[in-house]
């Protein structure tokens, strides 16, 4: 009695994007984070609509220049991240190192600018509900952002230490789409936190 078999030994042991379980795991995690940021924005809108004067008296808004510059640099930093993931798919350690390093440098610049913006705010999370929600949005996103950068730095260290192989390739790929996410989610948050209060009629 011979049972028919299908032999899968020839199949690859790495796959990218929607073929990979890891990608679905990442999509799930990003969906959770997106829901969180969506809820934070909803909370902002809810609090905003219950007030006549927004932001409350005594709050001075930061100038739009630095936040906008920062946003542009953040979006630009996605390019090296993309090339790093392409290098991972092509299994090119040099490419991964170079593009990931560029990505980390750009990211660190944006963190510095954000630090500066944050320090310039004349209210805190304890001042009033406006301060609470703005600081919380900034805090959650910064936490996420810094975690993303630490992840990239960790991978970079391993790459320069000579580690290679499928795990690292998957990690670089994973790192790229989590990075797109933290940057993309900042666009609406930026609009809500920095742009919307400039139009008190809306």
């Amino acid at each position, binding site marked *: 009695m011979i049972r028919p*078999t299908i032999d*899968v030994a020839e*199949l690859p042991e790495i796959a990218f994007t929607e073929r990979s379980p890891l990608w679905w795991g990442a999509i*799930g995690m990003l969906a959770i984070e997106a*829901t969180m940021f969506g809820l934070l924005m909803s*909370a902002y809108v809810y609090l905003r609509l219950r007030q006549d004067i927004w932001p409350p008296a005594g709050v001075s808004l930061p100038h739009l220049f630095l936040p906008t510059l920062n946003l542009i640099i953040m979006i630009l930093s996605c390019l090296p991240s993309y090339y790093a993931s392409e290098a991972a798919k092509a299994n090119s350690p040099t490419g991964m190192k170079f593009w990931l390093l560029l990505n980390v440098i750009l990211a660190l610049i944006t963190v510095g600018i954000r630090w500066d913006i944050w320090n310039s705010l004349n209210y805190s999370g304890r001042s009033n509900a406006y301060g609470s929600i703005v600081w919380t949005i900034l805090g959650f996103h910064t936490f996420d952002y810094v975690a993303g950068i630490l992840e990239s730095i*960790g991978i970079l260290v391993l790459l320069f230490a000579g580690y*290679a192989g499928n795990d*690292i390739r998957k990690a670089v790929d994973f790192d790229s789409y989590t990075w797109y996410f933290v940057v993309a989610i900042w666009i609406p948050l930026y609009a809500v936190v920095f742009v919307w209060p400039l139009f008190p009629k809306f």
Partner: protein
Amino acid sequence: MSTELIEPTATDPAFEREQRDRRELEKTWASEPGILSWLTPTTHHIIGKRYIITAFVFMLLGGIEALMVRIQLWRPENHFLGPDLYNQTFTMHGTTMMFLFAVPVMEGMAIYFVPMMIGTRNVAFPRLNAFAYYLYVIGGIFLYVGFFTNTGADAGWFSYVPLSGPAFSPGKRVDFWAQMITFTEFSGLISAVELVATIFKLRAPGMSLNRIPLFVWAMLVQSFMVIFAMPAVMIASTFLLMDRTVGTHFFNPAEGGDPLMWQHIFWFFGHPEVYIIFIPALGMVSTVVSAFTKRPVFGYTAMVLSLIATAFIGFGLWVHHMFATGLPQLGASFFTAASMMIAIPSGVQIFCWLATLWSGRITMKTPLLYICGFIFIFVIGGLTGVMIASVPFDLQAHDTFFIVAHFHYVLIGGAVFPLIGAIYYWYPKFTGRMYDEYLGKWSFWIIFIGFNITFFPMHILGLKGMPRRVYTYPAYMGWTWLNQLVTIGAVIIAVGGIIFLVNVFISAKSGAIAGPDPWAAPTLEWSISSPPPKYNFVYIPTVRSESALWTRTNDEPVITGVRTDRREVLATRILDAEPDHRYPIAGASIWPLITSLTVAFGFIGSVFFPSWIFWGAGLTVFAFVGWFWPKRTHNEQPEAAR
């Protein structure tokens, strides 16, 4: 319809090969030796079993709390608990049952059975799975440490602000509650992502979307609900904790915050939560109905679409918990319509099960008895649900014992009855032995009758004006003897529960040997030995229908070539489940435990000193470094070389 595999004979070369593969798999999937076997396992059987056992321990605690509540309400002006302990007790009861029992036990059942039912060896991210379990158990213990040290949460399981805020709940009680939420929801979210990736990518070849067993479908739908609902309660509890510990003003009306925002965010989670508990139970009902009628459930597509519709509508109902807050009428009407609409998919499923029962060949064993009990109780709960969807009637019923009756009919009838039925059904698979049918039927009738004696009179109490969460009531209200009836019913349920546990424990030692498939059931978990081997399948099977074993023929192929010398599974395509690639997965690891401890350090510490959240985060970074430390240093050969 054959359920038996051809037994290969000893002289068969294929048989020898199978023995060799089996030995190697045993070695590859073996636990670590000694104490490490307790701290490092990542196989889904062990994690799933731990989830289920832990959840039942919490259910016992929650049950004891329920009995304490009932003793307090036995007679008017009773002094058994007093207001302070009573408020802690009912809060702990609700919190335990919702967050520490109902959701985790469903996750546990899924983690145990889904990989077997879809024909793979483990979940997609085994270490993350273990990590989620540790977070859950630490969160639960944390809450109970609070309760036993007189720091039990006392603001109700939905902790409305401002009552739960810094001004009216000083001390640490509500902080313990809020941080427990963070732990358990974090854990639930991880499990959900885990299950989605597992169900999407690791199904046996041939198990296309329209052949997924209904329980697996239910878990998939539930996991998506978790992903979009649970972040809300984490945000809510974080806001609350920040208001309480660092002085933000989210819910403080004097500084531009709003107490109603809490209710919106909480119920945006809280209503889907009910379906997060209920939808897996629907999957269990379908599984049991199919196995004991010897028919696939009638209307597979309708069932799946109903599950999905329930999940979608479930997100549009949250305001029906807030009808008495004075919202605009137009908005309330929308939520009335949505709340009534959800009766349609529920109705479709009930009708399909009835049709299956009507057209099937019934074996009336304990699991099916529980399903019949489910239909009886759940229909009552569903109908009272339709009643309270109506704003005017809800304004009378809201926050009374009518609601208490309603949600116990829905949650115990809708989720716990199918769960117990499913546990009886899968008991042979868990233990390799049969449960005692006689005790099983006795426990059913006692629980069923006790349940109705407990919860039916509550409808009447509510209509007679008894609000929920009162620690006592005056004698002249005429509520006394109904309350006594309720308390008697609660004791009867407890007796039935004890018989159930006795059955579970005794049968594990002395039950008849079950064999792989005592029910001649249709899904893949019954094709392997009971209890299942750590690697589940020597060869990954292939599948031709949603009742895989009923349509299995001798020429149905199995999969070879998945490596046996390391933990590896087969990834298939999401829609048609064609083999795609081989997917190595992690083995035993201590890092999930260590990481959960560093995370717990930050979460628990921050209740006392907010800045500790950063120390915890820092330590967690180190733990993650250990977790993700790569194992190979050289550039691997292209895959084809293997």
